[in-house]
């Protein structure tokens, strides 16, 4: 029994006790990373010094730590996948990984991780890669503080910034992603967290999220992406404290929700998006304490949505606060602040005494007859809208906030 | 100096001027007379370019007036009823016209002194009586020492004293060899002024004669009687 314990302890410690350190560099005895790798054993650390390394595809199949000093450059010459990690407990940190091969069949990446656990990729610069960081069938991995840049022009010609497929328990933290197809791509990823990343100026989505249950994304910034953020076919997602900004264009959304259920959207900021949140076939989502400001449409809630709650949000300076495409309303609105609300508060409980109908007649007209947008803010339309507000006849009258706030929430 | 050739003007269907031929020369003082609505004012306004003729031409010193507005530099015009911007003062109006004319020649302020308007100079036009307004019109007409004076009912509305002063001024200008064109109903007033008479009726010139000629043919001493006689003859 004692011997067994001892062996177990020994095995455990083999991960803790640092192994050898191999130095790689032009002035060192080992000139190539590949050479260092072949010399190394599990638990070793390879330190790579400044320089340009054009070694084609580097495969890491041992549990090693790969550290860069002053960002040595790993150049894929537009031909190779640069780093392929095929072992667990690997750390890659401090490299500049650039110019991976471009191909649409094998999806070459700057750093690609296959079927591994506990891999850490931190503090790297990834520049001009097809896919920057690619994880498949991994778990308990950390992707942290990487700066990822690409120069994609067309959706088909570029891969994703951080691409995660069939993973579990990932932490994606503090990365900056620009110019890829999707900033962060999640498909079949569970129990993971995306925290404090900045995803801006990507061609398609800032964050693309499908079939990924029980995840959370918190305090990220999604700015000026082609179509904003898409969360689809998923349950139990928590979206807290993110900022969705300047996602502009035809079919561009701050947040696009499709077939989502049992999720929680709390404390986010939706600013200057064509549509703040677009909901299709969503159910049992709570939208609470968010700020919707200066959007074209604060929220578009299609008639296929049900049992969603919109509670205690600020709607400020949106062209239209809410829009929908049908007359069926199965969602509730409560205690929101609407800057277009013109009611009064006689009993001074800070809740307006008159219910507010956030759906303007004109937004319904525009939904059915898009060119009518041309007449927006004309005197005629303002007149129509005002009369509709007083006596709703064409808009569904259960589309209503019965407890509109008189003052905006401090969020 | 002024040649009018086949001038006609229609206001809608109404023919106000019908084939008018006239020639007026330097040094003449012409009375333009005729019953109300005979086209006197329209003729004058045509000469001034305020009414655009339907047909015919007007030449001023040999040039067609339609092509060149500068000829109005040589004309002083006193309208029948002077209409001025209400909230300008006499002084401002005179100043403005002076500025517009940019006249370098010496300003003839005789009438200004004669009418003694200096102390009314800051009065707004809207507060003035009809007579005072006429005085302003007269001053403006003579101010720039023009070669041609066109006076539309100059003495109407003026008190006898002012009217006498104006007449003196007209005589003075006549002596300087200017062309003076006067319309008036009061023929008696014109006796000692005019050298020629144009009589208009229904838009046409009935006759254009010198005063001597007129007096000679009719044997009358007074112009008014002479004209009356001619009219009677025509009726018969």
């Amino acid at each position, binding site marked *: 029994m004692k011997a067994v314990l001892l062996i177990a302890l020994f095995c455990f410690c083999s991960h803790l006790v640092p192994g050898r350190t191999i130095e790689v560099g032009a002035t060192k005895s080992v000139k190539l990373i590949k050479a260092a790798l072949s010399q190394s054993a599990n638990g070793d650390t390879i330190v790579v010094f400044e320089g340009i390394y054009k070694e084609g595809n580097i495969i890491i199949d041992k549990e090693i730590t790969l550290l860069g000093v002053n960002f040595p450059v790993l150049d894929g010459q537009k031909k190779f996948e640069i780093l392929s990690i095929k072992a667990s407990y690997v750390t890659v940190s401090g490299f500049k990984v650039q110019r991976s091969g471009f191909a649409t069949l094998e999806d070459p990446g700057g750093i690609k991780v296959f079927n591994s656990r506990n891999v850490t990729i931190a503090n790297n610069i990834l520049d001009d890669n097809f896919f920057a960081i690619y994880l498949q069938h991994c778990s308990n991995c950390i992707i942290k503080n990487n700066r990822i840049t690409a120069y994609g022009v067309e959706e088909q010609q570029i891969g994703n910034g951080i691409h995660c497929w069939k993973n579990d328990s990932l932490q994606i933290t503090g990365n900056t992603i620009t110019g890829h197809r999707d900033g962060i791509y999640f498909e079949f990823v569970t129990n993971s967290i995306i925290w404090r990343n900045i995803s801006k100026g990507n061609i398609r989505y800032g964050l693309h999220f499908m079939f990924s249950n029980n995840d959370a994304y918190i305090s990220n910034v999604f700015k000026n992406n082609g179509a904003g953020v898409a969360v689809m076919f998923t349950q139990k997602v928590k979206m807290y404290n993110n900022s969705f900004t300047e996602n502009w264009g035809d079919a561009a959304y701050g947040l696009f929700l499709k077939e989502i259920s049992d999720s929680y959207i709390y404390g986010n900021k939706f600013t200057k998006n064509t549509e703040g949140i677009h909901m299709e076939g969503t159910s049992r989502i709570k939208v609470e304490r968010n700020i919707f400001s200066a*959007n074209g449409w604060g929220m578009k809630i299609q008639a296929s949505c049900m049992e969603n709650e919109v509670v205690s949000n600020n709607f400020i300076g949106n062209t239209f606060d809410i829009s929908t495409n049908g007359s069926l309303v199965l969602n509730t609105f409560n205690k929101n602040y609407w800057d277009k609300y013109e009611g009064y508060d006689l009993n001074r409980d800070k809740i307006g005494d008159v219910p507010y109908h956030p759906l303007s007649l004109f937004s319904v007209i525009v939904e059915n007859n898009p060119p009518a947008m041309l007449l927006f803010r004309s005197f005629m339309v303002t007149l129509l809208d005002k009369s509709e507000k007083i006596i709703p006849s064409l808009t569904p009258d259960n589309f209503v906030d019965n407890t509109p706030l008189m003052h905006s929430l401090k969020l | 100096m002024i040649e009018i050739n086949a001038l006609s003007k229609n206001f809608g269907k109404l023919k106000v001027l019908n084939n008018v031929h006239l020639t007026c020369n330097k040094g003449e003082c012409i009375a333009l007379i005729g019953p109300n609505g005979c086209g006197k004012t329209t003729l004058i306004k045509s000469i001034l370019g305020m009414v655009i003729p339907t047909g015919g031409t007007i030449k001023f010193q040999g040039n067609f007036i339609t092509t060149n507005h500068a000829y109005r530099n040589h004309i002083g015009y006193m309208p029948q009823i002077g209409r001025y911007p209400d909230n300008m003062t006499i002084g401002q109006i005179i100043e403005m016209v002076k500025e517009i004319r940019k006249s370098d020649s010496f300003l003839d302020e005789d009438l200004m002194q004669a009418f003694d308007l200096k102390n009314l100079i800051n009065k707004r036009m809207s507060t003035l009586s009809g007579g005072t307004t006429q005085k302003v019109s007269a001053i403006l007409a003579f101010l720039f020492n023009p070669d041609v004076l066109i006076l539309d009912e100059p003495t109407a509305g003026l008190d006898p004293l002012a009217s006498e002063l104006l007449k003196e001024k007209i005589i003075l200008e006549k002596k300087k060899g200017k062309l003076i064109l006067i319309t008036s109903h009061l023929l008696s007033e014109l006796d000692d002024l005019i050298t020629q008479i144009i009589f208009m009726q229904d838009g046409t010139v009935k006759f254009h004669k010198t005063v001597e000629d007129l007096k000679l043919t009719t044997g009358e001493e007074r112009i008014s009687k002479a004209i009356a006689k001619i009219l009677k003859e025509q009726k018969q």
Partner: protein
Amino acid sequence: MNRIIKFIVLDILKNKIVLVYTLILAILSWSVFSLEDNSTKGLLTLLNVILLIVPLVSVVFSAIYIYNSSEFIELLLSQPIKRAKIWRSLFLGLSLSLLLSFFIGCGIPILFYAPINVGIMMLMVGLFTTLVFVSIAFFSSIMTRDKAKGIGIAIMLWLFFGLLFDGLVLFLLFQLSDYPIEKMMVAITAFNPIDLARILILLHLDVSAMMGYTGAIFKDFFGTTLGISVAFFILFLWVLIPFWISLIKFKKKDL
């Protein structure tokens, strides 16, 4: 030319109505900006001012002023001045004073409070609507000698452009909703200076909505430098053409 304009401008600036107009614009603008906690709402209120009040005051005041200056015009006509010059001076004089009123009343607060790009667009558009409706006033007052009729025409034109036109367009939209009429709609706006002005501002004020599918058609046209230039050129034509027609008529007018 300058002297006549000077006289007209001074005359108009002495006029109490213009002073009151300036004052009302100023009170309105300063108050909407300082009362509302976000400047967007203030801008929306000002948008209505620019699209309705500014044209109304411009057109009615100008029409009345033109009729009231008939004496002045007559006085000038007996002087050695070209007719066209008199009419042009009157136009420039009126325009300058109303532009000045608008600039002092609305322009300064706009520049002070509004975001710079929206502000400048609003200012430009406001100045242009002023010019367009002064021009329309010239057009309507040359149409008839009758002052009441002329002012009536001016007000009717304002009503048409401000209200009825949009009603007609809305009606047309519903009638033709099955056809792809977006591009036609862009063309139709050219026939209404107020619509043109509104859309130019809209593109800045509701930029997020205008980036969507619906707005994209307009954004694609009016959002580009070329589109904006074309729009302003059309507005310029709206200034030029009514005045030009009135000028031709004035040259032939008997006074």
